[in-house]
């Protein structure tokens, strides 16, 4: 395991919001092909870490390195709109989909950076633009099919059930052909059956699309089931990182979640 390439490295990362340290000197490494879970009580700083990795927050201290195809890249040098081109795609806790676009159009947004035709070609609908649109659509249908929702492709995203919306978000990230997918609470709001589906789905994604996966999750069952390793944090500080079984038995982690045992 440890001699695989590191794909994401956080080195002494800290992030402060007006006096409050949301992330506190965090060190963390993830390897290619791993499924890693990030856990911690609410407010522990998990989403902040994601936002730093994806460069929505640029004011963090420390270094975040991504193992791009041509070697490690310091992500701070990449603008927030360039992160997806490096190979990182993410979902959002608040499901940022475009309600008044069809499902397939939402997915196509994920492929935005893969288009080569420009605005003028689109304006005049050149043969090249038409062909590229056709090809991208085919690719989008494949992704939707993989997620089992291809039959819904022409419906508006708005008004779809929550489980479907989550799948659309995942489809959109897959469309970007990422090397690392970051999932922000993928199981939130799903029922048991849907969570089991998600479980299998995440494995399939790694298999079929050859990506590494980093996820924040509160559903311990999911995390323990599918993650190769789990990183536990609290108050923005690193607690432990190990296999799920060992993390469960880690006293620091237990204390963070359950509180100190008050026995004399």
């Amino acid at each position, binding site marked *: 395991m440890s001699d695989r390439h590191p794909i994401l490295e956080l080195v002494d990362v800290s992030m402060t*919001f*007006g006096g409050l340290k949301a992330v506190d000197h965090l060190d963390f490494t993830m390897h290619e092909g791993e499924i890693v879970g990030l856990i911690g009580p609410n407010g522990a700083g998990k*989403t902040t870490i994601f*936002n730093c990795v994806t460069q*929505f927050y640029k004011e963090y201290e420390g270094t975040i390195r991504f193992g791009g195809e041509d070697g490690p890249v310091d992500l701070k040098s990449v603008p927030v709109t360039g992160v997806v081109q490096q190979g990182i795609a993410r979902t*959002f806790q608040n499901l940022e989909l475009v309600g008044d676009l069809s499902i397939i159009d939402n997915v196509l947004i994920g492929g935005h950076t893969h288009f080569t035709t420009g605005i003028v070609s689109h304006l005049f609908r050149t043969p090249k633009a038409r062909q590229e649109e056709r090809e991208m659509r085919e690719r989008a249908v494949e992704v939707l099919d993989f997620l089992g929702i291809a039959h819904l492709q022409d419906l508006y995203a708005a008004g779809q059930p929550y489980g479907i919306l989550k799948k659309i978000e995942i489809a959109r990230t897959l469309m970007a052909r990422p090397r690392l997918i970051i999932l922000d609470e993928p199981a939130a709001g799903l029922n048991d059956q849907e969570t089991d589906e998600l479980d299998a789905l995440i494995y399939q994604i790694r298999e079929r699309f050859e990506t590494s996966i980093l996820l924040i999750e509160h559903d311990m069952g999911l995390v323990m089931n599918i993650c190769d390793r789990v990183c536990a944090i609290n108050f923005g500080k690193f607690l432990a990182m190990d296999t799920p079984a060992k993390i469960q038995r880690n006293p620091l982690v237990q204390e963070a979640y359950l509180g100190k045992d008050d026995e004399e």
Partner: protein
Amino acid sequence: MADILRILFNSLQTGSTYALAALGIALIWKTSRTTNFAQGSIGTLNAYVAGILLLSWGWSIWLVALASLVTAFLTGILIDTFIIRPAAKVGAISKQIITLGLIMVIVGLIPLLFGVDPYRLPSFIPGASVDIAGATLRYNTVFVIAVSLGLMGFLFWFIQNTRWGLAIRVTAASETTAKLMGVPTRTVTMISWASAAMMGTLAALIVAPQASVNPNMLLDVQVSAFFAGVLGGFTTFAGPVIGSFIIAFARNSAAFYLSDIWGNVIVYSLILVFLYFKPYGLCGKKAVKKV
């Protein structure tokens, strides 16, 4: 010296009108989350009421002013109840568009209700003036400034020190929280619109003697009020007021020393440039958005 004093007196008066309008806009922005583009039009409409009462029944300016403030109060309540409240769930841009539609309705109604001729409204205190270091200071100007400042002072005091003022501040901070805490947000928005309408009307009444009552009388004040709010930042109440006086002074100075026609263009362009570098105005604060 005389020139500077004259510009000063003028700026205090026009600054007051801008401040009244800007405060109305800020109040509505904070409580209804709407940019009220129709602020000037509502004021104008009620100034017409004053005009027609004066013309038809010969009441004194004080009486018609009072009457128009009453109708302004009612106008504000009606607009909030029948148009703004039902639109609560609509997006921000759509709310702006509704107020644009409101402008069109009012501007279209005015000729139908009041005819096409402009109305005349006299000053509150006619004629008399005093000479200070070569500059004429009319008593009316003093009165108008005093009333405006007094009103704004009252407003600030009210918002800081009374229960209803607290209700307004809470609603302005977050309407959901306010509702959860039992604040009667419906009444708060009604009062806000009614107050804004009255302030706009007062601004119109002040401007009327020089400009006469016509559909576009407050367009200039409106634009200036928006710029004042932009300059001072809409997140506070004091900001728009400060911005108003700065703009009034800058405009009058530019008009006198630089160019009569292009004075205001110069000032506004400078503000736009300023805004590019300080998007939240002098006093505004940036809200940190969480992803």
